[in-house]
C-alpha cells in the first residue's frame, strides 16, 4: 500500500481515538510517525504540532460559538503558554532526541495511569462528570460562568507559571498541553471542568502555533509528511466527535491504556537506545 495512504489512515485512527477519548491527537501522532514510519522524533513533533492546531482551531470555533470557552481567561493564560512554547521550541533543537523520547515515555505512562484512575472511579461510582463542582467555586460565587473576568484571581501567578510549563511541554512533545491546562484551570482557578476544557482547546491553537512557527522557520516540519497526516487527523477527529457517544468507552479505554503502555515501553527503549 502507498505510504501516503498509510499515513492518511494512521492519521484518521489517531484523530478518531483522540477525539473519542478526549485526548489530543498529538499523543498518538508522535509515536505513530516515529515507531511506525521511522521518522526522527523532532520531525514527528513538528508534524504533530500542525495536526494539533488543525483540530484545536476547528473545535475552538465551535466552543466559541456555543459560548463555552472563556475568551478573556484563555487569552491571558495563552500569553504564558505561548511564551513557554517559544522557550520549548528553542530547547527542542538543543537537547538529545533520546531525552525527548524518555520524556515522551513518561508522559505516556502518566496518561495511562490517569486513565486507569478514571476507570476505577467509574467502577466505584464516584462522581467525575463535567458538571463537577470546582474546588474553589466558593471563592468566585454564583454566576461565574457568565462573567469572563471572574477567574482572574489572586491565584493567577500560579496559573501563569503552570501555563509556561504547559507551553514548554507542548513544544517539546508535540502535544496540545490540555493535560496540564485543564487541571490547572479547574483546580487552581476554580473553573468548571467543561469551561476549562473548552478554554484549553481555544488556547491550544496559539500555543502550538507559537512552537510550530519555531519548527517551521528552523526546517523542522516536513510538508510531505504533514499533508497526509494532518488530513487524516482532521477527518478522524470529525468522525470521532460524531461517533464517540455510540462507542463503549470502558472497553476502548482499557485497550487504549494497553496501547499507551506498549508505546511507552517502545519510547523508553528508544531513549535507552535498546534494540
Amino acid at each position: 500500500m502507498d505510504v501516503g495512504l498509510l499515513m492518511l489512515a494512521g492519521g484518521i485512527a489517531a484523530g478518531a481515538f483522540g477525539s473519542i477519548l478526549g485526548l489530543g491527537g498529538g499523543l498518538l501522532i508522535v509515536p505513530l510517525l516515529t515507531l511506525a514510519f521511522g521518522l526522527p522524533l523532532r520531525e514527528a513533533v513538528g508534524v504533530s504540532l500542525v495536526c494539533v492546531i488543525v483540530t484545536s482551531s476547528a473545535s475552538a470555533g465551535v466552543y466559541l460559538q456555543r459560548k463555552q470557552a472563556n475568551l478573556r481567561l484563555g487569552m491571558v493564560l495563552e500569553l504564558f503558554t505561548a511564551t513557554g512554547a517559544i522557550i520549548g521550541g528553542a530547547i527542542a533543537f538543543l537537547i538529545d532526541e533520546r531525552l525527548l523520547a524518555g520524556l515522551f515515555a513518561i508522559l505516556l505512562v502518566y496518561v495511562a495511569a490517569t486513565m486507569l484512575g478514571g476507570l476505577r472511579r467509574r467502577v466505584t461510582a464516584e462522581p467525575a462528570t463535567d458538571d463537577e463542582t470546582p474546588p474553589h467555586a466558593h471563592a468566585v460565587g454564583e454566576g461565574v460562568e457568565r462573567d469572563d473576568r471572574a477567574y482572574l484571581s489572586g491565584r493567577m501567578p500560579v496559573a501563569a507559571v503552570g501555563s509556561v510549563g504547559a507551553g514548554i511541554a507542548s513544544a517539546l512533545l508535540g502535544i496540545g498541553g490540555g493535560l496540564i491546562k485543564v487541571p490547572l484551570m479547574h483546580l487552581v482557578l476554580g473553573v468548571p471542568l467543561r469551561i476549562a476544557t473548552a478554554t484549553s482547546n481555544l488556547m491550544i491553537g496559539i500555543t502550538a502555533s507559537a512552537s510550530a512557527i519555531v519548527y517551521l522557520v528552523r526546517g523542522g516540519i516536513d510538508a510531505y509528511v504533514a499533508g497526509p497526516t494532518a488530513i487524516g487527523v482532521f477527518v478522524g477527529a470529525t468522525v470521532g466527535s460524531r461517533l464517540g457517544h455510540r462507542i463503549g468507552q470502558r472497553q476502548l479505554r482499557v485497550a487504549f491504556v494497553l496501547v499507551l503502555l506498549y508505546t511507552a515501553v517502545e519510547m523508553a527503549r528508544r531513549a535507552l537506545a535498546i534494540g
Partner: protein
Amino acid sequence: MDRGAADLEPALARVLQAGTYVSITLVAVGTVLLIAGGISPLAGGPALHIERVLSDVAEGRPEGFLWLGILGICVTPALRVAGALVGFWRRGERDMVAVALLILAVVAAGVATGLLAG
C-alpha cells in the same frame, strides 16, 4: 457573559473556522497531488521557500499547496488573536488589547528566534 464578548465570540469563531477549512482544503489538494504523483512522503519534502510558494501553486506542484495550507494552519490562531485585538479595541478594553498585543509580540519573537537560530 457581557455583550461585548457575546458579539466578539461568533466573529472569532468564523475566523477560526474559515482559516481552518481554507487551509485544510489546500493541504488536501496537495496531498491528493502527492499521492497521485506517486511521491513517497518519506522521500523528504522540499524546504519552505516563501518566495516560491505561490508560483508552485500556479504550476500545480504538491509542495506549493502543502506549504500554503500549513502556513495558513499556523497563522489562523494568530488571526483569531488579531481579531480579538480589534474587537477589544472597539469595546474600549485596553487591558485586553494589551494582552492581545503581547501575544502577537511573543509569536513574532518566535519567528525571530527561529530565523536567528536557523
